[in-house]
Structures are given as C-alpha cells and as structure tokens.
C-alpha cells in the first residue's frame, strides 16, 4: 500500500539542524479519502520544511474499513522521535486507534489520537508540525479547528 503513503519528507530545516518533527498519520475508512487529505494537507503546508505525513486508509484489501496493520505501519513510517499525531474519521477508525494505543507496543512512543475534524484538523496538524512545533502544539492546533464555525 506504499502508494497510499505520501513520501515522508525529512526537514530541510526551518526548525534548525537535527530538529525532530512530529509525524502525522491520517486514518480514514477510505484509502482514497486518507490519501487525498494527506495530499491536500501537504499541499497547503507548502514550501520549505514538510513534516512527515502518512495515510492509512481502508481495510487493507481495497475495501472500506480500518486496518490496524496499515495504521501501525503508517505510524512507524512517520516517527522521527518527536511523537506522532493520529487523526481519524469515524467509528472503527477511532476505536481501532484507541485499541492500538491501549495495546501499548503497537504504535511508536508518544503517539496520540488527536481529537479534531479530519480535513481541517489534518491541514492544521501538518502546517504546525512542519513549523517544528512539538506534539502538544500540533494537537492543540488540530483540535482548534473545531472552533472555526463556517456559518
């Protein structure tokens, strides 16, 4: 499923040499949604340093659903030692990440399920992580997307 994992890009270093960037994992029931939101978020994060982003979408067999293997693999891919922020869409995506976190050893240390709207939160998380922010700041930025009302 490597085509669904956007190339993790290591920082060229707005945040300084050796800066450890927070990784972002996007979990959706749909492989296309996860990959597209990853593309959108990295596109809007724009030039310069880009935090590593990976999509974990679908059930792993091309169907709709959630795959714990894809999620674990995606988290390992983006782990740079500064923590991993995981954003999810609905239902089993949320529950599977929570169950993996409870398992203890299935995800990198300092992996957090971030409570945020999927698309808006992903953009906020990737932009913030790319600026070199720590995991708490990435989480706060993504969660803040809930407060932006459209009407």
């Amino acid at each position, binding site marked *: 499923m490597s085509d669904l994992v956007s190339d993790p890009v290591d920082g060229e270093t707005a945040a300084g040499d050796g800066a450890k960037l927070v990784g972002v994992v996007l979990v959706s029931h749909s492989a296309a949604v996860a990959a597209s939101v990853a593309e959108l978020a990295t596109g809007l994060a724009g030039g310069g340093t880009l935090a590593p982003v990976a999509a974990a979408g679908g059930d792993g067999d091309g169907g*709709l659903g*959630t795959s714990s293997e894809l999620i674990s693999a995606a988290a390992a891919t983006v782990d740079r030692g500064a923590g991993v922020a995981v954003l999810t869409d609905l*239902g*089993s995506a949320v529950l*599977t990440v929570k*169950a993996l976190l*409870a*398992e203890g050893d299935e995800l990198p240390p300092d992996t957090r399920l971030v409570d945020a709207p999927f698309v808006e939160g992903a953009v906020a998380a990737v932009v913030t992580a790319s600026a070199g922010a720590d995991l708490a700041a990435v989480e706060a930025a993504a969660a803040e997307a809930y407060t932006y009302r459209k009407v």
Partner: protein
Amino acid sequence: MLDADFFRRWMTATAVSVEHEAERLTALDSPIGDADHGSNLERGFRAVTAALEKDGPDTPGAVLTLAGRTLISTVGGASGPLYGTLLRRTGKALGEAAEIDEREFAQALRTGVDAVMQLGGAAPGDKTMIDALLPAVDALGQSFAAARSAAEEGALATTPLQARKGRASYLGERSIGHQDPGATSSAILIAALAETAGE
C-alpha cells in the same frame, strides 16, 4: 474449574456459531448499519481459531488475550476493536493462572465489559452490544445458562430502542424497530460460552 482448553473451545464454538449466523447478522446490520457485521466477525473469529491452533497458548488469560489481539487486527470494522478489547481485557484480568473458577471468570469478564463501555462510550440502553453483555455478566453469578438467557433477552430488548452510538445513531428515530446486530452477536458469544460449559 476452567482451563485454557475450555476457553479455546469457547472461541472455536463462537467461530462456528458466527459462521452459522453470519447471514442473519449481516441482515440485521443492513437497515441500520453498513451490512458487514456478519462477514467481519466471521473473518475475525476464523483468524482467532487459526491463531489459537498455531500458537497454542496454555492459560485462560493467554487464550483470550491472543483472541482479542487477533480480532483487533483482522476484523476491519468497529466490532474488531470492541470485541478485541472485550476479550483482551478479560484475558489480562485473568492473569497467568492455569485454571480459574467461575466467579473469577465472571469478575474478569466484567472488567472486559467495562473496558468496552469506556472504549465506545456506550451506556446501557444505547442499543449496542453492552445491552446484551451487561445483563449476561450480571447473570453469570448464577450460571452460564442464566447468562445466555440474559444476553438473548438483552439483545431482543434493543429492538424498540433508538441508537445513540455508531453508524445507526445517524438514523435517529429510524433506528427504532430493528434489533441491534452488535447485541445479537454478543448474545451469540455468550450462548457459545454456555454451550461450551455444557449448559
């Protein structure tokens, strides 16, 4: 006393029942869910049976922990992490004892059910698997047969409820009048338990 073999037989009996009832579970999941509950659980419990044959865990706790982990990694829908957490937490609560008595098992299963409630945020009456599992755990103090009856009654009693969790909750009042597929599969799990105990 209940040993690892008892729990292995429980999981195998569940796999057989789920396979037998997969179409009914999916039919129940069609009007209020996404019509995959039967096939998802069938895939998950088939993988559980294979994992138990391959690894041969030798304590009750190890059997249930392995079964839970396998469900989380193979089901692909919400029932994976929910049933996976139920069995894994129950297994962990049993510790490393080679044999346990019925009372210890009832306590451990309650720990598992509590963990499921925490994971999914569901309370009794939300039209979920909890509506079958909680009455079953309460009745387990009497007998396995009482637990089976309580789970079946609990599953039937979800029909008039309005769903407040999961995909069915988006349907609002239109979820009323349908028996909850998760409560139904939970009743199947508990029925397989009673069957394994010979009750």
